[in-house]
């Protein structure tokens, strides 16, 4: 029996009368890498926003380490140990990578109880050691993404949510990210990723859930998912169409 660290209970979400999804039940175990895939607009990012507290779900609960965190302010959730990397890269551009890390360490980093990396380790892991004093504004896109990962790591989180980290990156860079995520998982950080690239999912995820048309249509290991009929229907167009 593994520990459940994050539990989504019957989540229902919608905007202005338009229902996005309902009956979402996902439980995430400590230390695993969970992939979330789904077509565009199926609500993956919204799901992240609910976990982070940016949105409040219409009904249902988010339970983190046995505690109901639904509707709590985002910064409080971050201080409990949930880190996040955005799909759009948003490092603090007026600061250097080092300052980005420091500010995260000084805020959420103080109260989170995840595995702790020292600042040097984080810089090392994210390949930023020699760029730590350049203003982030002047860095390239892959480096900015690294800054974001570094910032999330500096919070000492127990869970990190990665929203399409491979978006806009090329082959080798994606490989680096995959290696990094595996390393983090080995250290005991739970990782949830949203991805479009199936190789990525197949390579690193322990388990995958598939969101489609407002509900959870499949759950299982990457191999099971790839051969699941419903998933193939959803992605390649179903027979009923």
């Amino acid at each position: 029996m593994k520990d459940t660290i994050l539990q989504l209970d019957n989540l229902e979400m919608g905007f202005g009368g338009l229902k996005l999804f309902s009956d979402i039940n996902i439980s995430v175990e400590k230390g695993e890498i969970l992939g979330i895939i789904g077509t565009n607009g199926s609500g993956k990012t919204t799901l992240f926003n609910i976990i982070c507290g940016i949105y409040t779900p219409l009904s249902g609960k988010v339970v983190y380490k046995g505690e109901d965190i639904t509707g709590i302010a985002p910064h409080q959730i971050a201080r409990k140990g949930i880190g996040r990397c955005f799909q759009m890269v948003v490092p603090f551009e007026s600061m250097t990578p080092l300052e980005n890390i420091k500010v995260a360490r000084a805020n959420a980093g103080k109260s989170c109880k995840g595995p702790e990396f020292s600042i040097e380790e984080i810089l090392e892991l994210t390949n930023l050691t020699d760029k730590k004093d350049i203003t982030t504004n002047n860095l390239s896109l892959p480096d900015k993404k690294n800054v974001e990962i570094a910032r999330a790591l500096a919070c000492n989180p127990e869970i990190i949510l990665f929203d399409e980290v491979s978006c806009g990156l090329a082959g080798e860079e994606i490989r680096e990210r995959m290696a990094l995520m595996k390393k983090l998982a080995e250290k005991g950080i739970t990782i949830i990723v949203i991805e479009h690239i199936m190789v990525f999912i197949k390579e690193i995820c322990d388990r995958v859930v598939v969101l489609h048309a407002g509900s959870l249509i499949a759950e299982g290991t990457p191999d099971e998912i790839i051969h699941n009929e419903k998933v193939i229907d959803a992605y390649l167009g179903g027979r009923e169409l």
Partner: protein
Amino acid sequence: MNKKRMLRAFAAGLIIFAAYLAYLHGSNMSYYASFIVYICLFLIAGQGWNLLGGYIGEISFGHAVFFGIGAYTLALPSGYGIDIPIPVTLVLSMLISGLFALAISYPLLRIRGLNFLVGTFGLGVVFLNVFKSSKQLFANKGVFVPFVSPQVLYPLIVGVTIITVIFVTYLVNSNLGLSFRAVRDVPEAAEMIGINLYKTKTQALVIGAMITSLAGFLYALYSMHVSPNATFDPAISNDILLGSYIGGCGTVLGPVIGGAVIIIIQETARSAITITGGHNLVLGIMLVVVMMTMKEGIWVTIQKLVDKLGKKKGSSSGKKLPKEKTEVIR
């Protein structure tokens, strides 16, 4: 990094020079000495404004409120004949304006928007009118405050200016200052690393308000007389804000340079254009020109120029340039 430090040391040298000047002229109350000290008061207030206005990006049009609170905390007891030692009133004035800032942050800073801008302007109007019209607060005729010899006061004010600049430099490079900048850069991401947006903004406002009230307090000692028109007037808020913006908000030395530039230009224009309100034309045009040509203010533009030249010529030229530049702009 090293160059930055050098520039800072240079600016600190300038301020020390000003202190020397103030001391020199303080003895016979020369116009220049008192003018330099007057500028220093606005530099302190500008640092207070800059914490929220520059580092977080919420423009306040009503910092005169804190300025006035500082001045009146000294003046009111003395107006009623109550004798409180000056250090006590100083602490009191900073405390009161800090608490007041805390109180107004709740309605004005909870959401991102124009609430803060309009609200602070409104508070300025409220305070000005309340102090002007109520006899208990000595209305328009104002209050005289205890006399402190300029020989003591002028160097003191210049000293406080330097301490304030150093304190703010330290503050903005500390973790709290980094949080301020994080909130300005990407509020959404700042939340994701556990920063409470409202609380951080409030901290900036409260610390800034205390610094500004310090300026007001010193102003009261400096002018020996406090009246609503000299402390709560929107013109005071405008000078504080203009100085920071023209100099380059979000930097420590920007408000220092900008504040000096603004006060000097304003006084020159006021003596050149004798029609009431005419000097605003110079200020207005200058503001438009500065904002259109160098969006980040004079200081940041100079820094960029220095960087460029430094890359071309090597680091030796970096030290001399700002002096010439500021002279030209003045």
